[in-house]
């Protein structure tokens, strides 16, 4: 693999700054957001590089667990950060974190133990990148589906309540919107699977090939990852929509929009 120098990265960074300047003409906020996000990418990835280096030299399940928990908590926060109308009183973070824990952690553990069979099972070279890919994708699914569900519940409140008034249960009254939210959460991964190799070359596989791996081996890993991501995202989305929709109603099956935050632009 050809090594990248700091100068090479600086050239790429210059392109991002150019993009920020261009978008400032459209909206000043947007430029700031791009720059902050780019800065975060740089700092976070450099840090994680150092952390991984340390983790690989001191293999211990405790450190791997700590890292995994940290990743999960950050993902939980990110899920709620861009919700137009999230659940109030920490429920948004709780639902997001719990559903990602259930799906990403379970799927990662299953893959490590039953499929890849690494030794030890928590080998950080496998566990951390795998969990990272799963969390990253599940996070989008969970965030999109929860956002869709709460938005729909707010916008269609008159319709949902009309159904309740006619004696439908809260479950029946919300069914269409739950279905819609789950589908919205799963569209990205379905698209990614459908377009893989034809439209896009998935990042992990590309990375392995750049690092000099045999393409067919890289492809096999990528297929495995795609499947794991699909399962993780699916389970996470179902769990999040399931728990969040219970929270939208109370014990008397009243629609409780007071449990949603007021609109954020």
């Amino acid at each position, binding site marked *: 693999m050809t090594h990248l120098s700091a100068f090479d990265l600086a050239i790429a960074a210059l392109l991002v700054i150019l993009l920020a300047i261009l978008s400032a003409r459209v909206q000043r906020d947007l430029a700031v957001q791009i720059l902050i996000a780019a800065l975060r990418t740089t700092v976070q990835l450099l840090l994680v590089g150092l952390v991984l280096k340390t983790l690989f030299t001191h293999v211990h399940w405790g450190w791997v667990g700590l890292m995994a928990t940290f990743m999960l908590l950050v993902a939980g926060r990110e899920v709620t950060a861009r919700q137009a109308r999230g659940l109030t009183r920490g429920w948004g973070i709780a639902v997001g974190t719990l559903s990602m824990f259930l799906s990403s952690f379970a799927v990662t553990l299953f893959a490590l133990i039953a499929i890849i069979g690494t030794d030890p099972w928590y080998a950080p070279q496998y566990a951390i990148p795998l969990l990272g890919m799963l969390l990253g994708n599940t996070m989008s699914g969970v965030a999109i589906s929860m956002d869709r569900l709460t938005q729909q519940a707010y916008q269609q409140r*008159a319709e949902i309540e*009309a*159904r*309740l008034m*006619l*004696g439908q249960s809260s479950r029946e009254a919300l069914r*269409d919107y739950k279905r819609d939210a789950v589908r919205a959460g799963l569209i990205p991964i379905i698209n990614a699977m459908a377009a893989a190799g034809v439209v896009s070359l998935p990042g992990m596989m590309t990375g392995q090939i750049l690092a000099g791996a045999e393409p067919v081996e890289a492809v096999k890993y990528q297929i495995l990852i795609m499947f794991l991501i699909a399962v993780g995202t699916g389970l996470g989305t179902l769990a999040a929509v399931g728990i969040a929709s219970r929270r939208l109603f*109370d014990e008397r099956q*009243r629609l409780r929009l007071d449990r949603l935050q007021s609109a954020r632009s």
Partner: protein
Amino acid sequence: MRLRAEGLRCEGLGPIDLAVEAGDCLCLSGPSGAGKTRLLRMLADLDPHQGSCYLDGVASARIPPPQWRKQVALLPAESRWWGVSVADHFPTDCLLELSSIDLPDKAWQWHVDRLSSGERQRLALLRVLANQPKVLLLYEPTANLDTRNAERIEALIADYQCNHQAAVIWVSHDAAQIARVSQRQLRIEQGRLLTTSEAAA
């Protein structure tokens, strides 16, 4: 007593005590914002509240919410339609005839987008009656209808009220209508219930 409410209260409204006999109609009026809608919503158990409601002596807490709302049915000012055809919004075993609201039988298959506001309003009432409620909470059921249709609706409600011994709470601003349909009248002002007249027997 078919419907009884004790100490019904939410923020800025109540406490309200109220009772309606089977087969009786109570008219409710008052300026907008006084709490008419919120009172009906509390009775239908759609909003959190304090106090209790009883249907034929059974507390609402002892009746599952969907059953309660089928029996204490609220007809809101504006109806909502989520399905494609009219029939999608009725129980499959509905025995009611569309002729009772002056619509042809083929209207079951009509698309809801095509309905006029008057048709929507009449169908919304029929949709409520299809559940055979014991209590009707009506929010201006004839508000946008012409005289002929308003009379039909009044007759339909009166028939139902009599045949099913339903208790009716009717929000109306039309003094003539109030006198026609109700045995008792109450006014809500600033979240409080005032009696304006007793039954003119």
